[in-house]
C-alpha cells in the first residue's frame, strides 16, 4: 500500500502543482531552518530555500521514492546548494544581525527576544563545527529526524551518523563551556 506522501510525489511528478504545493507547505519551514542555521543570513537562506524547491520541482522526474520521506531528498539538494553558496560567498555568520533574524513573524516579541539571546549563543557555536557535524545535530535535534533518515539524506551509514553525532555534541559542549568561562 502506498503512503500518502508517495501518492503526492507521483502526482507532482506528473505535473500536479497542487500536490507539489502540499509537499512544499509540509517541508518549507524545516528546509529554511536547516539552510538558515548553516548560512546565517536571512536573505541567503531565503534564496537557497527557494532554489531548493524550484530545483526539486524541475528535477522531480529523476526522483525515485525509496520509502524515505521526501525531505531526505530536499535536504540533499539543500546541502549541495549550501556547499555551492560557500564556494562563492566565504563570509562568516553576522552575529549582530542574528537576533532580528530569529524573530520571524512571531507576535510575542518580548519572549522571542529572550529566546533569541539563547539561540544566538548556540547558533554561533554550532556554526563553528564541521559541516557534517552541523548537519547531523540540526537534523537530529532541531528537526527530530531518525538516524536512518539522516543517513539517507547525507549519504552515510547510520553508524557514521552516530559517531558524528557523538563527536559533534562533545565538541559543541567544549565550545559553549569555553565561552562561559571567558
Amino acid at each position, binding site marked *: 500500500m502506498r503512503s500518502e506522501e508517495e501518492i503526492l510525489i507521483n502526482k507532482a511528478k506528473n*505535473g500536479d502543482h497542487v500536490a507539489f504545493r502540499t509537499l512544499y507547505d509540509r517541508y518549507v*519551514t524545516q528546509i529554511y531552518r536547516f539552510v538558515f542555521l548553516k548560512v546565517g543570513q536571512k536573505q541567503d537562506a531565503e534564496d537557497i530555500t527557494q532554489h531548493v524547491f524550484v530545483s526539486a520541482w524541475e528535477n522531480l522526474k529523476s526522483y525515485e521514492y525509496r520509502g524515505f520521506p521526501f525531505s531526505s531528498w530536499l535536504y540533499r539538494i539543500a546541502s549541495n546548494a549550501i556547499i555551492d553558496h560557500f564556494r562563492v560567498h566565504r563570509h562568516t555568520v553576522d552575529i549582530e544581525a542574528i537576533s532580528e533574524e530569529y524573530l520571524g513573524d512571531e507576535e510575542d516579541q518580548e519572549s522571542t527576544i529572550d529566546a533569541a539571546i539563547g539561540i544566538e549563543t548556540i547558533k554561533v557555536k554550532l556554526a563553528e563545527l564541521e559541516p557534517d557535524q552541523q548537519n547531523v545535530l540540526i537534523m537530529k535535534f532541531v528537526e527530530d529526524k531518525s538516524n536512518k533518515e539522516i543517513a539517507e539524506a547525507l549519504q552515510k551509514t547510520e553508524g557514521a551518523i552516530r559517531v558524528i553525532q557523538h563527536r559533534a555534541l*562533545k565538541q559543541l559542549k567544549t565550545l*559553549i563551556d569555553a565561552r562561559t568561562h571567558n
Partner: protein
Amino acid sequence: MHEHIIEQLKSLQSIKPDNGFVLRTRNLFIPTSASITAPSRTFSIFNWQYASAFALVLMCIVAIPFFVFTPEETLASLDTEVLSSEIHSLPITVQLQELKYNETAQDTITNAVSEASNTDTNHLDRSLIIKEGEEINANTEVDTNVDDLINQVLQ
C-alpha cells in the same frame, strides 16, 4: 550528559521563515505562473526537433532559388575542375606578365640612365639653342627658282 545542549538545540525550532517569503515562493508553483513550467524533459527534445526542421526548411528556401535563378555561367564558374585548372595556370600567367614588365622596365631604366650620363646632349641645352637662333640670318636672300621648280613638279 548533553541534555542542556540538546535542549538548546531544540530551541532553534522557533526559527521560521517570513510568511511573505513562504507565499512568494509557493506562488512559483501555480500552473498559470510563467516562470516555472511543468517538469517535462520531453520539451527540450521537441525543441531540438523544431530547430532541426527549421534549419532544413531554411536551407531549402535559400538553396532552391539559388540553383533556379543563378545564370549558367555563374554556376559553371563553380565547377571545381575549371576552378582547379584556372588556379594551376594562374601563377604561369602572372610570371609571364611579370617577366614582360621587368623587360620593359629594364629598357626604360637603361635609357634613362644613359641619357642622364650622356655628356653629348648639348643640343638640349637652352642657352645653346638661344645662341644658335641668334646666329641664323633670317634676312638672307632665298633662291626663288627652287620654289618654281618644285611647283612645276607638283603640277
